[in-house]
């Protein structure tokens, strides 16, 4: 696989994973860029003992763990944590149904609600959910990418979905 093919095939999911782990577009871009560059550098030594996507996601996770240790980012994260600590378990209410051109606003509110609900999950649970729902990965693949047992993937995904169902009930009923 050439670097160009790797970037073409995995950069969207690497970025999406980074975005959902960090919850911030700027940090996500830095994280995904660093991880993809590491993957490109490591490509000649990649032995192919797992699917390349799993290998790339593992690099994203490792880079993210390294970022977490950065004192500068830890400060901002703590600050954000204080700001968003209120109403942790409260369900997120959908906006009043709006006809016509205001549908777009409703769509944005929906997106915001999903993002808010996701941010209330543990970062590892977010990664599991994203890899399952957006990349259709099997539990075995996710376990490999996150270096955790398959049983943990199964139980954490179930718990994460349960929590999201509770938080987003108002949105899911309308579906």
């Amino acid at each position: 696989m050439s670097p160009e093919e790797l970037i073409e095939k995995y950069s969207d999911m690497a970025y999406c994973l980074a975005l959902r782990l960090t919850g911030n577009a700027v940090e996500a871009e830095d994280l995904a860029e660093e991880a993809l560059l590491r993957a490109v550098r490591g490509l000649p030594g990649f032995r192919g003992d797992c699917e390349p996507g799993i290998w790339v996601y593992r690099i994203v996770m490792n880079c993210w763990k390294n970022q977490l240790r950065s004192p500068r980012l830890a400060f901002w994260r703590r600050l954000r944590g204080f700001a968003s600590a209120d109403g942790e378990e409260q369900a997120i209410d959908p906006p009043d149904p709006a006809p016509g051109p205001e549908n777009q606003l409703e769509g944005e509110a929906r997106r915001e609600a999903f993002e808010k609900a996701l941010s209330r999950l543990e970062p590892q649970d977010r990664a599991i959910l994203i890899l399952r729902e957006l990349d259709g990965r099997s539990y075995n693949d996710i376990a490999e990418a996150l270096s955790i047992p398959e049983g943990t993937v199964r139980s954490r995904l179930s718990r994460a979905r349960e929590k999201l169902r509770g938080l987003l009930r108002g949105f899911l009923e309308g579906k």
Partner: protein
Amino acid sequence: MTHEEIKKELSAYFDGQLGPEKAVEISAHVSACAECRAALEELSALSSGVKENLSAAAPAAMKERVLARARAEKKPLFRTSTVLAAAAVIILALMAGIAAKRYMPVMFAQIQGMINAASSTLGASGGNK
């Protein structure tokens, strides 16, 4: 399995990640249990909602930056092969010099004389300027 045990397995059942025996057992239960059917419908709605609202495409500029950085790292000032070739030429020249001094002293002395004469000529012409 009891109703409570099945409820815990509904997420894996929804994903098709259970063994065939468990899947058949849960299927049978779901067809008779309204609560589990409703939970499966919610899982399906949640799955669509996540796909619809949480996907994101990588910025094109980021992809280009990664490739540009990778290409820049691939182009060192001198390629390894060039450096190795230059080192081999220098080593061969040194070995040839040593061999000439040892086995062809007359010729070596003549060559050395020619080099000395040339350098003194160059030195003299440089001094006239």
